[in-house]
């Protein structure tokens, strides 16, 4: 018994424990509400099921959050990802809508290339402001967040561009090897990110820059170059996410595409245990965080609550997770527990999530 509690205590200290616990609690709540929730079936060689849907719908968020994780790891933040999502989706859809044959693979590839190049330029612009001019990241990226939304509306002329292109549709809504194609893209990008950051020194360097940019520069790391690079990578990730979102609905809406995705991405990163002050990051945590956010949204939908009320639940989860991870709060709770009144506090996360 005591061995079990020690093991549990060790487990609880793992930094992925709380996000995972929240995810499990959410899934359990869903199963309690609808027992068939976890079932997955094979239909027309495609896998179907609520869980698959959650993963498919969270794919763009995971991508954006992966880029955001690296930016936050360097101690920065990128508020412009939502605008980049909208711009890249708008450019791709505009190009495809003007093709003679919207189903031509070549034309779609050119559209993707163009949009990605633009996303790269936008990321480089952010990187230039932060690393080159030394402007605070939150302000530097605020510029593109405001102006970028205007740019995406300029590209679509304020209209919703509708397209009918089978190859483009594949990105967000298609299936390959029985799995949704978007999940495969995310899996590849995530695997690449893990390989590059954990099998090479790159991850360590990014963490070093985030821990103390000046110290890492004195240690011989070209910290500015790496800071610049993470913003470019973040822009690219947002660009690909833009394809997924617009492909899923076969249309680009410059006004609403990717709206508030920057906030969700930051939340995913924070829920995943990456500190906003930089210096450490966890890609697995971010993916868990994004899944938590999407599961929460799906749960709220499934329980027939007004969609936007999900914001209320998001607020509660965010504050709960942040408090649990905050050293000051943990210290306060421990102090409180030591006082003799044993009407001890139940674990805050578990109660508040089900509320």
């Amino acid at each position, binding site marked *: 018994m005591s061995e079990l509690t020690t093991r549990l205590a060790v487990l609880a200290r793992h930094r992925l424990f709380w996000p995972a616990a929240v995810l499990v609690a959410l899934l359990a709540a869903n199963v309690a509400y609808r027992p068939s929730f976890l079932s997955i079936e094979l239909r027309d060689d495609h896998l179907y099921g609520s869980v698959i849907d959650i993963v498919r719908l969270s794919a763009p968020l995971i991508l954006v959050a992966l880029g955001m994780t690296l930016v936050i790891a360097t101690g920065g933040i990128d508020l412009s990802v939502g605008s980049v999502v909208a711009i890249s989706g708008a450019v791709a859809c505009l190009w495809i809508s003007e093709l003679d044959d919207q189903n031509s693979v070549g034309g779609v590839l050119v559209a993707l290339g163009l949009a990605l190049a633009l996303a790269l330029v936008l990321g480089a612009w952010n990187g230039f402001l932060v690393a080159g*001019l030394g402007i605070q990241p939150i*302000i530097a990226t605020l510029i593109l967040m405001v102006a970028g939304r205007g740019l995406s509306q300029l590209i679509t002329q304020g209209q919703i561009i509708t397209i009918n292109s089978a190859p483009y549709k594949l990105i967000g809504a298609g299936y390959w090897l029985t799995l949704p194609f978007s999940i495969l893209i995310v899996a590849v990008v995530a695997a690449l990110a893990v390989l590059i950051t954990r099998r090479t020194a790159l991850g360590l360097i990014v963490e070093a820059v985030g821990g103390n940019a000046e110290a890492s520069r004195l240690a011989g790391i070209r910290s500015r170059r790496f800071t610049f690079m993470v913003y470019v990578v973040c822009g690219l990730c947002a660009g690909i996410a833009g394809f997924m979102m617009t492909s899923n609905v076969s249309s680009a809406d410059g006004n609403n595409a990717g709206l508030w995705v920057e906030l969700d991405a930051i939340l995913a990163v924070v829920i995943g245990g990456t500190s906003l002050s930089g210096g450490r990051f966890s890609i697995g945590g971010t993916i868990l965080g994004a899944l938590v956010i999407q599961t929460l949204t799906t749960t709220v939908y499934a329980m027939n609550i007004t969609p936007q009320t999900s914001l209320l639940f998001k607020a509660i989860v965010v504050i709960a997770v942040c408090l649990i991870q905050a050293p000051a709060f943990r210290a306060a709770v421990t102090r409180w527990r030591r006082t003799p009144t044993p009407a001890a506090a139940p674990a805050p996360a578990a109660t508040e999530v089900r509320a």
Partner: protein
Amino acid sequence: MTTTTATIARGAAVKRYLPVLATGFLLLVMYAVGVSQYRAFSNVQVVFNVFIDNGFLLVVAVGMTFVILTGGIDLSVGSVVAMTAMVSAWLLGEHSLHPALVIVIALLIGPTLGFVMGCIIQFFEIQPFIVTLAGMFFARGMCTFISSSSVPITDPFWTSAAQARIRFGEDNFISPSVIIALAVVAIAWYVLAYTGLGRNVYAIGGNQQSAALMGLPVARTKIAVYTISGLCSAVGGLLLSFYTLSGAPLIGVGMELDAIAAVVIGGTLLSGGSGYVLGTVLGVLVLGVIQTLITFDGTLSSWWTKIVIGGLLFAFILLQRLIGTRRS
């Protein structure tokens, strides 16, 4: 000797006011462009309309100035504005409460939320960005929780407040909301320039550790600025409900960005410690005049507003950066 000191002091003062002066100059240039392009632009009512249409933003941006001066940020303001308008509309319509009581309740919600956020930021050392983000989600969620569609306001006090006109001469007028907004500006200016709280705000924004070592009440001041920001958002929400005569779950989306942009364009450093309420007023006016210019032009679409604001943000941040580098 004395002359050099005086020159240095004057130089420092000029440098300190340079961002505000730049904003004022920009405002004049934009107004001159408007007057030279469109005949009706020189009408005094155009200026009054900028105030009428942006009174609520002015109040919200003043609250944001306090927070940003301490080096923090408040993302919840737009949602708190919406929540205040929503709760007012709901209490007036569904519960037929007395208008005075509704105003008191509406003015309590914002500061309470601000106080709670300030406490979490201060005592649990969680970043303002995340805490106020949660506050934003919370307030926005509360709006839809109350009603998922727009709630009209038919209360006689509200409609009279919406329709009242304070006339200047034959055909120029302002609404009572403008008076309230300007009163908030005056109070904020007094508090920041002449009270202990104002001095503490600047000191904490300059260097929090030094402020703490000097024995300034850091915790109390930081909680106070988020409470003030919440109060300003609540006032802004009331003004907006006078303006639109309704509460809707999606009003004020993105207002926090407008407020932050106004503060930055007004020359307040986002790292805290330097800036003036007057700058924020000018910043709001710049945003308002951009909007007016685009409306007058007629061929430009609304998205140009965002692109121009983005460009201005860039220009002013660059300006601040240049001044900052020279100083250090």
